Each structure stands twice: as structure tokens, then as C-alpha cells.
């Protein structure tokens, strides 16, 4: 039994409830015990760092202090934005011990910051700590026939000196996990393009334009759906998709699922556990491809780019 300190983030109890729910299911199957940080607070993403300096560090720091009290080696974060803020803060605090001490002693009441917890995104945790082999061993209902475009967004792998995870240009970890589930990960050039995340409410034109391009390229890849690991990416690509279709005249009909939903499905959990009715773009049609037999499933040739990126991951 592995133990993991868990930071869900604000959207886990709202827009990304299906992520939180399926994450808990699959972690149980994988024998990981998740301990949620008691009384965690919003990390401030994405506004605190835009507007302030000290508060931008203090909000994530309070969570780090609370997390360290649970005495697990690693803290796993569901939301990519929270993950990024937590990692950036941790790096900054660890590089500037004087600043860390100042904020710790003047702003935070919850105790001493030690800086001894490892922060990982849940995708990173699944890939590095559990590994595709173990995940493959838990599959009871392979997703054969399902074609997916894995979309990482900007914050899971960038900046490289903050995340230290996968390739910032052409990551493969989620692709490898999806192949472990039996699905086919398609070549997809917009894996790490930004969806416009933090402008979701204040600047919808930008979100529609950026997310529109991602949908377009994902559609061209031949994928039945987009797989994500970030609640902001999910809601931008899913909830805004009908508007993007209306404004561009294109028809995408591309459902956007969390990687944990597909893991849960492949691990044999019933469909109702995936909370599919929460999706704005219907999922059923895409899932009906599961079980279709590919003409030459083994001889899928990866391009040079994919092979290079894969070796970089290793």
C-alpha cells in the first residue's frame, strides 16, 4: 500500500467532479491510499500571481505546510494549474530560503515550512510512481479500437526546469498510459499548445480561438476523443465546443475525457461511475468504438518525432 497526500483543487468539487471521483476509484485499484490535505485552500491559480507577489507565494505555501504535516513522501495534485503554482512556489521558496522564512513567519500560522515534500501531478504520479506495466496489469476491459488524442496543455510539462517531467514540446507519458489501456494514441501536434485557460471567463474570444485550433488538429488526427489531465483544459474544450462550432462553422463532435475516466473504464468499473452525463459533448458515440478490431493493430509505425520524444521521457 502506497500513501499519497492529495490536493484536489477548487474545481474538483465543481466542474471536474468526474476527474476527482474516477481518480479516487483508480487509485484504490492501484493500491494507493490518498490522504486529502485537511482544510486546504485555493492555491491562487491563476489570479494571485498575476496581481500580487507575496500572496501568490503564501497561498500555495500554506498548502505545502499542511501537506508536510501528513508525513507522506509525495503530494499528488489533480489540477494542472494548481500543480504549476505549487511547483513554481516550491522552487522559488527552496531557492530563496530567506524569502521562505520571511513569508512563513509573517504570513502563515500553520507551522514551519520544511520543503521536504515531493510535488507531482497525478499524471506524473501514475507514470513515474506506478508505471504503465502495473496499470496494464489491472486492465480487465481493454479499450481496443478507441483512438485518442492526448492533450497535455501548457502547465503539466512546462517550464521544464520547474516540472522536470516529460518533454515540453512532444510529451508521451499520457500516450503510453493510454496504450497500456489498449487504446490507440494518435499523432497529435497540438499536445502542448495553450487552450487559453485563465481567460475562460474574462476573455472568451481568445479561448475560443485557441481551443478551436486544438479541436481542429485533434479532429484531423483521426481521434475519436481528446484525453486530458487538467480541469481547465477540459472545460474550455468541452463546454465551449458548441460555441466554437457555431462560430467557425466546423463540426468537431469531439468528447473530452479525463485520463482517469478511461483508466476506470478499462479497470472494469461500470459506466455510471464515469459520470458521463456531466459532459457537454456526448461521449457514447466515441466509446462505441471500443471493441472494434483494427486491421493491423501491431504494425503501427511511430514517426521519428514520437520515438525521439519517447526516448527523452525514458
Amino acid at each position, binding site marked *: 500500500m502506497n500513501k499519497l497526500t492529495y490536493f484536489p483543487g*477548487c*474545481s474538483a*468539487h*465543481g*466542474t471536474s*467532479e468526474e476527474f476527482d471521483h474516477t481518480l479516487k476509484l483508480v487509485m484504490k485499484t492501484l493500491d494507493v491510499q490518498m490522504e486529502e490535505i485537511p*482544510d*486546504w*485552500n*485555493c492555491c*491562487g491559480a*491563476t*489570479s*494571485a*500571481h*498575476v*496581481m*500580487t*507577489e*507575496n*500572496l501568490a507565494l*503564501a*497561498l500555495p505555501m*500554506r498548502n505545502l505546510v499542511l501537506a508536510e504535516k501528513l508525513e507522506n513522501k509525495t503530494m499528488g495534485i489533480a489540477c494542472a494549474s494548481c500543480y504549476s503554482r505549487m511547483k513554481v512556489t516550491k522552487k522559488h521558496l527552496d531557492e530563496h530560503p530567506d524569502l521562505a522564512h*520571511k*513569508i512563513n513567519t*509573517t*504570513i*502563515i*500560522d*500553520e507551522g514551519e515550512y520544511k520543503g521536504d515534500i515531493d510535488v507531482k501531478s497525478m499524471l506524473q504520479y501514475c507514470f513515474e510512481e506506478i508505471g504503465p506495466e502495473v496499470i496494464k496489469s489491472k486492465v480487465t476491459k481493454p479499450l481496443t479500437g478507441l483512438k485518442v488524442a492526448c492533450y497535455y496543455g*501548457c*502547465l503539466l510539462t*512546462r*517550464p*521544464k526546469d520547474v516540472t522536470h517531467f516529460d518533454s*515540453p*514540446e512532444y510529451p508521451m507519458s499520457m500516450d503510453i498510459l493510454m496504450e497500456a489501456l489498449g487504446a490507440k494514441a494518435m499523432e497529435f501536434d497540438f499536445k*502542448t*499548445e*495553450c487552450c*487559453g*485557460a*485563465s*481567460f475562460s*471567463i*474574462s*476573455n*472568451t474570444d*481568445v479561448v475560443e480561438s*485557441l481551443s478551436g485550433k486544438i479541436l481542429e488538429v485533434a479532429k484531423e488526427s483521426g481521434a475519436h476523443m481528446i484525453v486530458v489531465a487538467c480541469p481547465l483544459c477540459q*472545460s474550455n474544450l468541452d*463546454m465551449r465546443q458548441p*460555441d466554437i462550432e457555431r462560430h467557425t462553422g466546423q463540426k468537431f463532435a469531439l468528447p473530452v475525457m479525463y485520463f482517469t475516466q478511461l483508466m476506470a473504464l478499462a479497470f472494469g468499473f461500470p459506466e455510471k461511475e464515469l*459520470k458521463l*452525463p*456531466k*459532459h*457537454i459533448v456526448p461521449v457514447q458515440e466515441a466509446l462505441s468504438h471500443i471493441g472494434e478490431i483494427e486491421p493491423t493493430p501491431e504494425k503501427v509505425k511511430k514517426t521519428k518525432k514520437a520515438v525521439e520524444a519517447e526516448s527523452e521521457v525514458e
Partner: protein
Amino acid sequence: MITLGLQDQNTFLEAVNKKSGANVLECYQCGKCVSTCPVSGYMDFPPREIMQMIKLGLKEETMMANSMWFCLTCSACSGRCPREIDIPAVMEAIRHLAIEENYRSDNKKVKEIRKFHDIFLDMVKRYGRNYELRMMAEFNIRTRNLFKDMHLAPKALLKGKITIGHESTKSAKAIQKMYKLAGKLEKGEK
């Protein structure tokens, strides 16, 4: 006065470098950031020009630009910059300088973006956490655009995509105290 390259005479450049931890002088104007940036098309001065403006000490023009408000901190530019300059940190530094020194752009989008961030931070101050529906509603009220995104609401609510209720952290009070202390600390540093 234009003082290109003379760091000791360009106090603006000095301030940006100090705040961001980057060295803007290292930029050799290749423009890779501009072609990489997903929002450079929306900026009045794309990142390359901002870098040059800082080098030239054009403080007023830089402070009133919309560029730093449009930056998404996606770090695509810094990942590809051949000089490995942390451009998002530079954008953040000039944004913070603009706030501290009270530069306010009349650009409608900049005003809306700033308003959104204010609402977001207010929400976290009140509850310790954030609630999407409330935030959307408040944004619409405070930008006097009541019907923005309203067509999405029924479906999103019906499907449970957005929830009405919300929870607070037990220590919302502790967060409020943090805001106060962080504000004090910032004032003390000025």
C-alpha cells in the same frame, strides 16, 4: 533619454531585471517568442518588442501596453528562447510594476482581465476557495454584461457541470488574515 545597453543609467531595465530575475539585455531580438506565443496577435506590442522597449528604457509605453495582461504564462516562449530568458517572469514583473505604480490602461480587455482577477482574489479571500458559478455571475455584474455566457448556464447547471452550492475552508478566517498580512508585507517593502 535613450540609454541602450547602459544598465546603470536605465533604471526601468534595472527594476525589471531585479523583479524578474531575468536579464533582458540578453535578448538579441530573434522573434522566436512572437511566433511561439499563442496570444501575440492580441498584444499591442508582442514579447520581442516589449523586450526591446525595456532595453530602451521606454517605461511609460511599456507600462501602458496590454501585452503583460494578455500573457497566459504558458511558458512556450521561454522554452524556445535561444537565450533562455524567462519571458513570462519579465511579463509578470512589468505587470506588478504597473499595479504598484498605478498605471491603468483604458483598453477594455485589460480592464476586464483585471476585474476578473480582482473578483477571483475577493472570492478566495471570502471563502478560502473558489466557486466558478459565483465568479461568472459576479464578473457579468461587474462588467455590466449580464447575458455573457448565459446560454451555457442552463445546460451546464442541468448536467451538474457547474454547481450552485459551495463550501468554505474551515479556516476562511485564516486566509483573510493572510491577505491582510501579505498586503502589509508588500507595503512595508515599498
